[in-house]
């Protein structure tokens, strides 16, 4: 990760948060770019909320890493904590009062797309019915970052290739 740190020195939380914010900004536009014309105009990304998402993610994850003495979080925690903060602040806003379902569920879809990328899992290996249930859970159920980190671990175990799974580890 870029961020103005000296060799071996961890960039500050603020620097990492700004880098992640920029990354999420690009990811959002790459996601909606392939939406049909008429759909992508129904949503917009609120940059202020995205900044809060990014800073909250790092502050939250830093606490866990500090408590457990973890230097770098694994991909399941990254995915679980990012899901939590995207869903908490919902940075994608609707611009219409007659939106398509993809726009209505844009935050859930964005959170899952980012999470799958953290897991290095291609969306085409995930069954549509399961994805439907994941979106439902994000929309209607209470969200706990650690529970989602565990879910992400299990999703990777279920659908990842042997290289991507983490055989031998007992706990996520």
């Amino acid at each position, binding site marked *: 990760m870029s961020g103005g740190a000296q060799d071996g020195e961890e960039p500050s939380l603020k620097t990492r948060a700004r880098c992640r914010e920029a990354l999420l900004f690009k990811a959002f536009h790459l996601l909606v770019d392939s939406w049909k014309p008429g759909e992508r105009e129904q949503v917009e990304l609120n940059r202020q909320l995205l900044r809060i998402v990014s800073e909250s993610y790092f502050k939250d994850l830093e606490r866990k890493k500090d408590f*457990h003495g973890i230097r770098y979080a694994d991909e399941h925690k990254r995915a679980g904590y990012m899901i939590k903060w995207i869903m908490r602040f919902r940075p994608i806003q609707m611009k219409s009062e007659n939106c398509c379902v993809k726009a209505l569920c844009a935050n859930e879809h964005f959170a899952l797309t980012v999470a799958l990328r953290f897991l290095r899992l291609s*969306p085409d290996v995930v069954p549509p019915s399961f994805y439907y249930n994941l979106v439902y859970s994000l*929309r209607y159920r209470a969200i706990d970052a650690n529970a989602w980190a565990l879910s992400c671990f299990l999703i990777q175990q279920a659908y990842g290739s042997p290289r991507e799974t983490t055989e031998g580890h007992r706990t996520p």
Partner: protein
Amino acid sequence: MVPEKRDEQLPETVETLLDWKLLNSDSPFDDAEFLGEFESHAQKANELFEKAFAGSDFAQ
């Protein structure tokens, strides 16, 4: 019987809990790797969403 000094019975348990090993990564997050091929990833995610919600009245 309540021990006079409760702390004498605690350290081993506390240490065990705090020493619980979680999965972690041995490398920092790589922005370039994340964004590499993200366009294709996003396209597949959109296709997955379309299949998942085909014919659904979810959230309407």
